[in-house]
């Protein structure tokens, strides 16, 4: 509670001054749930904001606040921004969803853009990156370097988005290394717990994995643990090379800025449409980053070539045949999963050695 007061006060003063000239630049409020660290969710949201500001320059005026997670503080903050004449508000937490929908309903000239939700509404849009595309490419990297074909995954919650990323990762690994099987998985059942994240990494390392995939851990603790134990690490959201200078294998780097720029353009042109953006490599919202120098030139080129294929639309990771881990063919040959299928994914591909709750 207390930690949020300072930035909030600062933002309110900022809003009071910046919103008094309502007609010139587009006023944008930007709320991020946690402190902006070096890597990860909040860092990437904030980097997206910077990209947006650099792109539009004087055309927009952005008031950014961090450390405002879901709850009454967030409600107050977004209402304040709306009352002071914001034209657009970006909400960075899943938990901002319901308040955001109400906010959009009440303010007729306001566009609300929410990260990673499942609801849309009047003037209320949601967006998510196609993380799984980068997961597939990083899976290829993992398949190349896994000498004993032992992969380990640390994952936050068994949600469709996370399951999709695990599946794509394993499919990518198997595409270059058919020996990949029995991929070990540890569920943290938490979005943020550095100590547990580190312990999970150590558990997998003591189980003999060659590559650790840290899937939405909210902290670089597992990546550091991999570096200390000489095991390759694959990261989500941001390039984590700084935490594993010698053992960083690959990361799915998100670029939220590309998504934001489109939204701001649509509001400026008066054709903002509330809806669902699912942007990936083709939209420049996603790419592989921090590829390890241990990969051979051929391997690196194969990964980048696959990335180009995804960009061009000639390849999609979730194209049949795909077999689930009970041996049933869930996607028939040549069939591509739809966005709905991907967003609601509830099966594990063959080779993933874990149990989903019913």
């Amino acid at each position, binding site marked *: *509670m*207390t*930690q949020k007061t*300072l930035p909030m006060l600062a933002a309110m003063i900022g809003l009071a001054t910046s919103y008094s000239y309502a007609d010139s630049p587009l006023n944008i409020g930007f709320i991020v749930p*946690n*402190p*902006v*660290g*070096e*890597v*990860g969710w909040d*860092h990437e949201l904030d980097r997206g904001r910077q990209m947006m500001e650099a792109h539009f320059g004087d055309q927009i005026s952005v008031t950014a606040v961090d*450390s405002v997670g879901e709850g009454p503080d967030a409600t107050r903050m977004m209402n304040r921004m709306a009352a002071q004449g914001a034209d657009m508000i970006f909400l960075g937490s899943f938990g901002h969803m319901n308040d955001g929908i109400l906010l959009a309903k009440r303010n007729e000239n306001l566009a609300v853009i929410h990260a990673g939700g499942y609801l849309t509404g009047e003037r209320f849009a949601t967006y998510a990156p196609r993380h799984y595309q980068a997961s597939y490419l990083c899976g290829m990297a993992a398949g190349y370097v896994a000498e004993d074909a032992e992969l*380990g995954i640390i994952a936050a919650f*068994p949600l469709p988005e996370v399951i999709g990323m695990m599946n794509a990762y394993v499919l990518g690994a198997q595409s270059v290394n058919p020996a990949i099987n029995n991929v*070990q*998985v*540890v*569920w943290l*059942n938490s979005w*943020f*717990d*550095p*100590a*547990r*994240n*580190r*312990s*999970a990494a*150590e*558990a*997998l390392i*003591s*189980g*003999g994995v060659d590559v650790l995939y840290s899937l939405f851990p909210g*902290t*670089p*603790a597992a990546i*550091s*643990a991999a570096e*200390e134990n000489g095991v390759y690490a694959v990261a989500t959201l941001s390039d984590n090379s700084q*935490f594993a200078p010698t053992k960083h294998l690959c990361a799915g780097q998100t670029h939220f800025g590309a998504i934001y720029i489109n939204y701001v353009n649509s509001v400026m042109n008066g054709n903002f449409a509330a809806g669902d953006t699912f942007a990936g490599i083709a939209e420049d919202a996603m790419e592989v980053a921090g590829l390890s120098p241990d990969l051979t030139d051929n391997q690196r080129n194969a990964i980048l070539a696959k990335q180009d294929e995804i960009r061009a639309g000639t390849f999609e990771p979730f194209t049949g045949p795909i077999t689930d881990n009970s041996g049933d063919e869930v996607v028939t040959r040549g069939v591509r999963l739809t966005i709905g299928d991907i967003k609601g994914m509830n099966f594990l591909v063959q080779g993933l*050695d*874990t*149990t989903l*709750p*019913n």
Partner: protein
Amino acid sequence: MDMIVFILTGAFATATPLLLAALGELVTEKSGVINLSVEGMMALAAAMGFATVYTTGSYLLAFAVAAGLAMLLSIVFAALVLIFSANQVASGLAAGILGLGLSALLGREYESFTLQAPSGLSVPNLSNIPVLGSILFEQDIVVYLTVTTGLCLMWIIQHSRAGLILRVVGEDPHIAHNLGFNVLRVRFLAILFGGFMAGLAGAYASTILTPIWSQGMILGRGWIALALVVFGTWRVLRVMIGAYLFGALLLADLAVQTLNLGIPSQVMTSMPYVMTIIVLAIVSRNALRIKLNAPVSLGQSYRPGQ
């Protein structure tokens, strides 16, 4: 086998911050004061302990700074409950929120920074014993010091004059006063000791156990320490066993998941809490003995001469 060694070895480090904080709180509660600000003290200590190692590289200095700051916060709490006779629960919560807020403010610059993990000690010769050697003799120095502190406290509380005074104050401050002891001074020192230990716990969590600072990283471990004191029925040995068991179960959750025995991960994740409660409930099933160990005046304010 590897997994069992992993669990039994790692449990010491996992349990150490819980145990340090719980031992401090146990002494505070033995004097009749319940301090609910453990979480906040740990967070503040974790932030500044991390910052100290990050800027100076000195672990000794970091633990000193962390313990010092947590003690300062405990002095704020002590002033409220001892001088102004404020409600202990409310004062503890307030001091805890203050600590959490300060940790976020002071740790802002260091958000999600990491440190190189210090390497553990390896006791010569003994660490070569198969299995047991790596479990018992390759821990970091704080683990050994924590266990030693626990054993010392066990003796001090049960058998020394200081321990007797502490217990008398916690049982009945009026009698202690009539016996000529300065109740407020004893309670103040007990609160200060609680702060000192919570400080060490926080510094250990952010610089050795998980060498990273991130706002909110203590994640309820201060509250678990408080719960351990109660479930351990204010007995040092039980609190020590409870903390180790909890640490082992936390790791068992993760280790068992890697084997995929078909148990839903949510069940495994709740296991440490469920099992610790069950085991400690069985150990402490004798209600009379709990009453014997629980400080009678716990939570009650005391004013000399009333």
